[in-house]
């Protein structure tokens, strides 16, 4: 592999998380790849002016890694700061995927007056195809937001993502959906990305983790004070890193001041090592930036480490503290640090100032042995997850997958339908299998006798298609062409047959790549108003028990006044639709039940992304794609226990009987929406449900299409 790394600032002395990661990736991959080149700017660091060229442009070789520096663009820092202030002032509680924070001009200026380098992008456009993969990090700077577009097929983003306002901006979402691969440094960071950008990112994502350099043991002959502070002589809680509102250090100082007011006799100190804002506390010690050896000495001498930031994708200092056996207090609202803490139990996860005061009290009153035992719980975890060798192996493997090229094979495959109908199960199935085969090198296409106008770009008419020499895979009962193989399906079961004999069972699989679409903003905006969204997907007909769903919702409404029901699907029976509308009117729920009819994929994506509960009371399923898609979107599924639902859900979701007991079913919905424990269990069961992989589906398809296999 030939790899390039693109990052705004690069240097050994840079201490930011993303800067350290860029450094470690470049030098770590050096020995695992054919060559590594770093493309960066001439700017010095995040803390220095972004449009000031400090380093000289040009190429140098640094310890086996090619380093190319380019001049930064001139920008208007005042305009950037103006927009940035607006972004930072946006209330966190209002942050929701799809929400509009900036207008188009502000967005353009935010990216345009960010740190950018047009010469660098020009170079990438000219020479980008010399690399197998180009890693951009982190996600929120102009260089990344503009650069990925230039080398879209090779762009792999290592976003260092955390839950902050920038992650909700449309150019960021577009990048996450459009790049070739995504590398996450923690489970929490990936979970956040999945919730923000949808399950469509899953096929291109890899959780590679991140590593740390083990803190060096300080030499005994070096007891010199660190700017007047002797760690070995004091009892203190340590904060490492930048001090700023984004890092939430104000909360830490506030809590510590209050604790010391409650306990004036305490000798506990709060020590800050790192650059940043002034600290308003008579009990705090501010050391400024420290060397690696000093940092190690401070960590070993501390009673515990405090990490109050919620803007972390992987907290290096947390891992370093655990590596030397110190417990850590992290912010319970930060998924990326709360996850590992929950796993190890090596510390505390306060969420507000009262909790933090309690943590200071716990640290102050604990014995050194108790604190060492607490911190020691995570040492094994750190040794396995934060080991650079393991991380780099995972990274190299993920890059190989992301850039794997598949040369088109000669043997074409055509998927034949009688009729290609919009949002129809058979059509969706044919399209997703065709896409899967096409992504894996086959010349695959879908053709049909009759094509819905809305599918004109995806399906061709049989008479217009080139079928010469193609393997013909017919869907269900299609007799349009002589079929080499036939795919039959029903009740969540898919069989490939040849000459009437079953040759393979195709694992049930929903292509999440098909959901890598931008949710329709107009549909999404009203659905993120804080109300409960209940989604029922399926044709409006008696077999799908839509009337019973409306009746249950009428009872549900009495339990949850802030609820709405979305009925999505084609009308198969106009009389039945009239009865549904009458029922809605009779119960006075016209404003809370929406009969949406058929909707586009972006509109459905908006509904999936905002639904709190997925209800399906269908008696029959053709393919079960809707259930699989709801599961993929982490929506609790409540389905009628029909044979198809039983087969598809297996041991996950919730299956119900006796639809006449509408009040109890409504109460069940309420529990699934409102009870966090039940909800978490149901979602967890759905995530753990054994699911097919693209590889297993492809293997089954190949088995059944011998000529394609030979090709």
């Amino acid at each position, binding site marked *: 592999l030939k790899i390039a790394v693109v990052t705004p600032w690069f240097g050994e002395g840079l201490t930011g998380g993303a800067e350290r990661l860029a450094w470690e990736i470049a030098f770590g991959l050096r020995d695992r790849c054919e060559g590594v080149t770093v493309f960066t700017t001439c700017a010095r660091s995040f803390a220095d002016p972004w449009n000031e060229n400090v380093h000289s442009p040009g190429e140098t070789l640094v310890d086996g890694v090619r380093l190319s520096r380019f001049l930064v663009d001139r920008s208007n820092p005042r305009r950037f700061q103006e927009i940035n202030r607006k972004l930072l002032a946006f209330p966190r509680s209002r942050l929701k995927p799809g929400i509009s924070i900036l207008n188009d001009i502000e967005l353009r200026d935010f990216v345009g007056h960010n740190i950018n380098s047009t010469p660098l992008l020009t170079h990438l456009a000219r020479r980008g195809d010399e690399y197998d993969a180009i890693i951009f990090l982190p996600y929120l700077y102009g260089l990344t937001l503009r650069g990925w577009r230039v080398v879209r097929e090779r762009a792999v983003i290592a976003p260092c993502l955390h839950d902050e306002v920038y992650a909700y901006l449309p150019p960021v979402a577009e990048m996450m959906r459009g790049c070739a691969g995504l590398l996450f440094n923690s489970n929490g960071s990936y979970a956040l990305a999945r919730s923000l950008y949808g399950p469509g990112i899953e096929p291109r994502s890899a959780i590679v983790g991140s590593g740390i350099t083990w803190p060096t043991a300080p030499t005994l002959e070096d007891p010199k004070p660190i700017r007047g502070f002797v760690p070995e002589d004091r009892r203190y809680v340590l904060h490492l890193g930048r001090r700023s509102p984004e890092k939430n250090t104000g909360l830490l100082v506030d809590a510590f001041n209050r604790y010391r007011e409650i306990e004036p006799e305490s000798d506990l100190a709060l020590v800050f090592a790192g650059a940043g804002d002034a600290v308003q506390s008579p009990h705090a010690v501010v050391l400024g930036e420290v060397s690696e050896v000093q940092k190690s000495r401070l960590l070993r001498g501390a009673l515990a480490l405090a990490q109050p930031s919620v803007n972390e994708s992987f907290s290096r200092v947390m891992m370093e503290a655990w590596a030397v056996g110190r417990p850590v207090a992290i912010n319970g609202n930060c998924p990326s640090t709360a996850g590992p803490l929950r796993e190890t139990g090596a510390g505390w996860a306060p969420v507000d100032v009262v909790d933090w005061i309690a943590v200071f009290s716990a640290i102050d009153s604990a014995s050194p042995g108790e604190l060492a035992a607490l911190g020691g719980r995570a040492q094994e975890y750190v040794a396995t997850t934060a080991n650079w060798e393991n991380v780099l192996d995972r990274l190299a493997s993920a890059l190989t997958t992301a850039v794997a090229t598949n040369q088109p094979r000669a043997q074409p495959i055509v998927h034949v339908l009688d009729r290609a109908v919009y949002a129809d199960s058979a059509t969706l199935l044919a399209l997703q299998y065709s896409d899967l085969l096409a992504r894996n090198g086959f010349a695959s296409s879908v053709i049909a006798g009759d094509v819905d106008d809305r599918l004109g770009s995806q399906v061709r008419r049989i008479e217009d298609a080139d079928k010469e020499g193609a393997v013909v895979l017919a869907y269900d009962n299609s007799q349009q062409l002589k079929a080499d193989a036939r795919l039959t399906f029903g009740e969540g079961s898919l069989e490939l047959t040849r000459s009437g004999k079953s040759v393979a069972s195709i694992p049930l699989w929903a292509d999440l790549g098909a959901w890598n679409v931008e949710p329709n903003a107009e549909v999404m905006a009203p659905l993120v108003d804080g109300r409960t969204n209940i989604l029922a997907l399926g044709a409006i007909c008696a077999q799908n028990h839509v009337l019973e769903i409306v009746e249950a919702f009428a009872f549900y409404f009495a339990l949850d006044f802030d609820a709405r029901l979305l009925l999505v699907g084609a009308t198969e029976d106009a009389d039945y639709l009239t009865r549904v509308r009458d029922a809605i009117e009779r119960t006075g729920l016209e404003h809370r039940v929406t009969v949406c009819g058929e909707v586009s994929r972006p509109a459905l994506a908006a509904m999936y992304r905002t639904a709190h509960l997925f209800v399906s009371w269908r008696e029959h399923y053709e393919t079960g794609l809707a259930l699989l898609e709801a599961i993929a979107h982490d929506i609790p599924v409540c389905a009628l226990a029909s044979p198809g639902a039983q087969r598809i859900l297996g041991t996950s979701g919730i299956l*119900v009987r006796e639809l006449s007991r509408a009040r109890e079913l409504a109460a069940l919905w*309420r529990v699934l929406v409102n009870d966090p424990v039940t909800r978490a269990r149901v979602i967890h*069961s759905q995530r753990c449900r054994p699911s097919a992989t693209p590889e297993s589906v492809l293997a089954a398809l190949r088995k059944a299409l011998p000529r394609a296999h030979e090709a």
Partner: protein
Amino acid sequence: VIERNNPLVDVDELMAKIHQQLASQNSPANGSTLEDGRLASDATTLAAGIENSLAAAESFAQVRTTLGSTSRVLSSSLLRSFLLRALAFIFRDQRNVDNALIDALRKTLHLNVRLSEECEFLKSRVAALEGPRSEGPPKSAN
């Protein structure tokens, strides 16, 4: 009602939660503001408070006819008159906006009061409809 297909979900525990939900819905003390008439009393108190605030805002949104303490330093009545007219002219648009907003808020307030009264009425109807049912199933004619 619920299948035991999901080993992570204890159906008995789930049924208990469902019955708890239903019981809280039926209970007169379920914490809902609709149940104990608190909405009506809260609405009356709040409406009075909001009406007071609107009246205060309205009085300040009128054209100034005096200059208050400033007038003591302005000896000339001509100057005072000019200043008042200038203020009236400068803040003419603002006054229109203020008055429109006050009017809109007052209409919203009246609508809310009516809605809360409707809620009370519907609540009493629901209670009347549910009353006999909670006493048990109807007795057989035999």
